[in-house]
């Protein structure tokens, strides 16, 4: 599997309050949430993002609250993959659990700029910057997490386990 899209670039410590402000958490409908995704940090994001586009950020992406609404909003907005130097741990779990692909890759976070066209191979973790003709290698996932991803998230994984 792979994804290709245009990059939206952000800095360090993008918190869940800017990914989806709490004032919109009186619903858990992903389509409603997506309308306000990144609103407090980048009011243009939701108007510009196209299906398949990619978010790239520096350290500690998704820090703050445990709200799963954050990766849900990003996924529903059409983002195909998030690449960061590091992720906050609850966001990391949530993204895997709901089937939003993420990759930790400090080199990509440095090398990729806003507007670059980027391709990601989910199986190998190879990230290709088409605009700059560079490649970066993301950390591969441990086997258990790959199984989660392959199942399409934790709930499907448990259902499969139950069926066996």
């Amino acid at each position: 599997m792979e994804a290709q899209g245009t990059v939206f670039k952000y800095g360090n410590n993008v918190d869940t309050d800017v990914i989806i402000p709490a004032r919109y958490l009186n619903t858990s409908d992903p389509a409603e949430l997506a309308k306000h995704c990144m609103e407090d940090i980048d009011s243009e994001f939701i108007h510009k993002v196209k299906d398949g586009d990619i978010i790239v950020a520096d350290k500690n992406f998704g820090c703050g609250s445990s709200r799963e609404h954050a990766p849900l909003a990003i996924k529903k907005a059409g983002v195909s993959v998030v690449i960061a130097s590091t992720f906050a741990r609850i966001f990391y779990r949530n993204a895997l659990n709901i089937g939003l692909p993420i990759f930790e890759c400090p080199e990509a976070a440095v090398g990729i700029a806003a507007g670059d066209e980027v391709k990601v191979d989910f199986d190998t973790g190879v990230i290709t910057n088409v605009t700059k003709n560079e490649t970066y290698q993301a950390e591969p996932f441990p086997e258990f997490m790959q199984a989660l991803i392959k199942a399409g998230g934790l709930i499907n994984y448990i259902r499969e386990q139950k069926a066996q």
Partner: protein
Amino acid sequence: MGMTMTQKILAHHAGLPEVKAGQLIMSKLDLVLGNDITAPVAITEFNKIGIDEVFDKNKVALVPDHFTPNKDIKAAEQCKLIREFAHAKEITNYFEIGEMGIEHALIPEKGLVVPGDVVIGADSHTCTYGALGAFSTGVGSTDMAAGMATGESWFKVPSALKFELTGKPGPWISGKDVILHIIGMIGVDGALYRSMEFVGEGLANLSIDDRFTMANMAIEAGGKNGIFPVDEVVLDYVKEHSCRDYTVYKADPDAEYDAVYQIDLSTIRPTVAFPHLPDNTRTIDEVGDVKLDQVVIGSCTNGRIEDIRVAAKILNGKKVAKGIRCIIFPATQKIYLQALREGLIEQLVEAGAAFSTPTCGPCLGGHMGILAKGERALATTNRNFVGRMGHPESEVYLASPAVAAASAITGRISNPEEIAD
């Protein structure tokens, strides 16, 4: 090689003789928690699994505390969904308005967590219960759903940072100043993926409420959990609140730590985190002139009885400055009643503060104290991100209840040492 306190708890719950940092394990759970924001998503996911019952109806807790008492129709619908689920699944620990409180103050108070437990909660501040020597950590709604269904959760075993505390803090210094100092020192990702273990003789000078505040904000340094050894202070609290059996785990003497920090509590100053990150800290001596519009005292971080007592001690016989909205939220009904019986509410209301029913309300910009564009609040809460308490162009400063109460009197960020009699 030895194990940290957290690693020992996880090894036991995974049925393994030992675990190592980085190892992926499946752990048994003693409690699975959710609130009115996260549980609705978890319930939807739970229903997709295709089982009828939760793994143990006594080991799931549902606390509608964020947008309650219901702030609008959508919030009311979310709470209704949880109420109906709790009823259908016969969840023992569902807490309705009138008996509920802010989850992380309520759960220990109800005796639902004891030393040695493993707890997950779909709320990032679930790490609070580390004060009782339990492993507790925040997760998302899907993890909560899986936990409710299976009674298990996957974890990557964390490595740890050790904080050796010595000395005695000054009279107006609380756990809030200590944890803000630590977050300022190591940064908002300084403990990313790791445990924060607090040890040392200085612990004897930190009350259980101080420790709840410190464990609560481990997540603000990116930590997986914050944890304290089980001493007399913890056991007194646990025996008063719970009749459950508990297990005391101790870190091995040869446990390995990624880093060890020495902190002399006697040198800690009242500490304030400036916008827009909890690690943007300054001591009260470096604050300068910061004029305020609102002061908030409460939350899962600082809404306990000691916090209300400190606020009342400073505000009693004084007046909140003209033009300042001072809003005080006790974290639970029990704390509310205790404040009432001790005469604290009368003192605070006489001083011109608003005293509210328990709710997370303004901490996350939900309701009951939202900021307009350009407004500034000093709050005893835990996050000061952009837009956290309202308008994206408002500002939140984080500090202790003592600094908050002193600041309510002057209308600018103030040192309790100078205001208090």
